[in-house]
């Protein structure tokens, strides 16, 4: 018996690139919907919360309300788009049956995840930046810690893409793809301080909010803009990384057991 010196030897770079390009091409085909929709939605948020309501709101911790909600809005889109892109990316081949080719290819599970999640995260990051630029047309934005801002952006996009990948594998039908984002992620985001500071809540709700993981993500991201945060930056980073590794472990388990992928 021969031992593994066969081609491709260690890392199937062409394979990763093939999936990545495939996924990006899918987004480019629908570039109009992919980018215009969030730009319009964000603009509407600013018309409503920024101009209409925001002008009657007091500044939050020294930040004008319209500017205060920008990080939360970006995060909201980042969550939903990362989950949607990654879950759809892996669910669709399962649905059409073309997954056979991925399963029969000389590509490891880490490479498969890298390609799918990398593509989904790329799209989300671009989207996040587009929203940031759109927002800057409406409200004055300052980013005090640009490197941290990028770090949180990339880490969150990657983590939620991983999460979406898991949902895509778990899903048995299209309605499942909507289920978790609609029922869990969106409520947690709205309750996680996307539009307000946790300190504005009554004390018992503040404590309760600390069990919401999304609070930490939004708080950390907002800190990189304005240095205002509900929890410490270290705590935010730890929670984000923690969620990332939990998702990674679940994906590892999925491929090891073949859960809903292989018989």
């Amino acid at each position, binding site marked *: *018996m*021969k*031992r*593994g*010196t*066969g*081609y*491709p*030897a260690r890392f*199937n770079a*062409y*394979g990763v*690139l*093939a*999936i990545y*390009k*495939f996924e990006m*091409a*899918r987004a480019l*085909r629908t570039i109009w919907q992919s980018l215009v929709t969030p730009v319009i939605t964000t603009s509407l948020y600013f018309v409503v919360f920024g101009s209409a309501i925001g002008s009657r709101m007091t500044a939050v911790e020294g930040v004008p309300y319209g500017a205060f909600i920008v990080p939360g809005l970006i995060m909201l889109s980042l969550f939903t788009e990362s989950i949607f892109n990654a879950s759809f990316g892996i669910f669709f081949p399962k649905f*059409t*049956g*073309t997954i*056979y*080719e*991925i*399963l*029969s*290819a*000389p*590509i*490891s599970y880490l490479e498969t995840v890298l390609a799918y999640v990398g593509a989904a995260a790329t799209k989300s990051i671009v989207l996040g930046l587009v929203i940031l630029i759109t927002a800057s047309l409406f409200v004055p934005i300052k980013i005090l810690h640009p490197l941290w801002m990028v770090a949180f952006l990339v880490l969150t996009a990657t983590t939620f893409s991983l999460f979406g990948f898991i949902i895509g594998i778990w899903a048995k039908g299209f309605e499942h793809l909507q289920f978790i984002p609609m029922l869990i992620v969106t409520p947690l985001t709205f309750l996680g301080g996307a539009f307000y500071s946790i300190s504005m809540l009554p004390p018992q709700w503040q404590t309760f909010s600390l069990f919401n993981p999304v609070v930490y993500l939004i708080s950390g991201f907002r800190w990189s803009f304005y240095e205002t945060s509900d929890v410490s930056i270290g705590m935010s980073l730890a929670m984000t990384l923690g969620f990332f590794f939990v998702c990674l472990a679940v994906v590892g388990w999925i491929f090891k057991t*073949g859960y809903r992928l*292989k*018989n």
Partner: protein
Amino acid sequence: MTAVLSISNLTKSYASGLQALKGIDLEIRKGEIFALLGPNGAGKTTLINIVCGIVTPTSGKVLADGYDIQRDYRAARSKIGLVPQELATDTFESVWATVTFSRGLFGHAPNAAFCEKVLRDLSLWDKRKDKIVTLSGGMKRRVMIAKALAHEPEILFLDEPTAGVDVELRRDMWNLVLGLRKNGVTIILTTHYIEEAEEMADRVGVINKGELIVVDEKTTLMKKLGKRQLILHLQERMATIPTALAEWPLELKSDGTELVFTFDAQQSESISALLRRLVELGIGFKDLNTRESSLEDIFVSLVHTR
């Protein structure tokens, strides 16, 4: 001949309790066309899917070109191409994009000239810019074959390649298969059209209820298990077979107008004795013909006697 694929004691039990494969041992020789025959649900697709990495075996071992399909899956899988039974293609991608995708996925550097050749061989070159969703079923089947060939596999699995395919595509496909074989590619195919296996295959394996019943050279199999018949069209109707002919296994057919002598390869010399005896008895016949049992007859008798 060296084995390019070696399967030993392979079993598969599904979570439902179904035992799809019960200890399969099979060696596929390099460069041959091997036909795997069996009724629906016999385990053909399970066997193929295990070798290709889509289904995890319960126990047993598979070596593809010497590489263990589980431990050295990269090396093993890069040798194997698969055209699955179900039509499963991308939708909005172009033919060209999907074929170059497959090549990359299997770890190969882009090679436009090679992909072009594959598409031309399959009469897909004119369609290369078309979205797959716009193609007919037959064209989609061609696309799936092109995808399987894009990474220059040494072992090609064709799972029911001609199911629901028109005559022209079937002919093209067999020409392609013969061309691949000429280049040293080993081909393992399953089919319900046994006459195809009879025409194409070097060796035949029959699988039923998860067990390989027989594996042999096609010609040997047909010689060993095949039957021949001599059919005599009688001048006059015969009510019963005369006792003078009792030493031959004869049957009366077509309302007593045909006398049928069934014999195997070893008994052919008894034909002349039978014919002499008929002349002696004054039994005349207008015409005679012989027929050999087809692979299909052999297949049916094999599967039914179990």
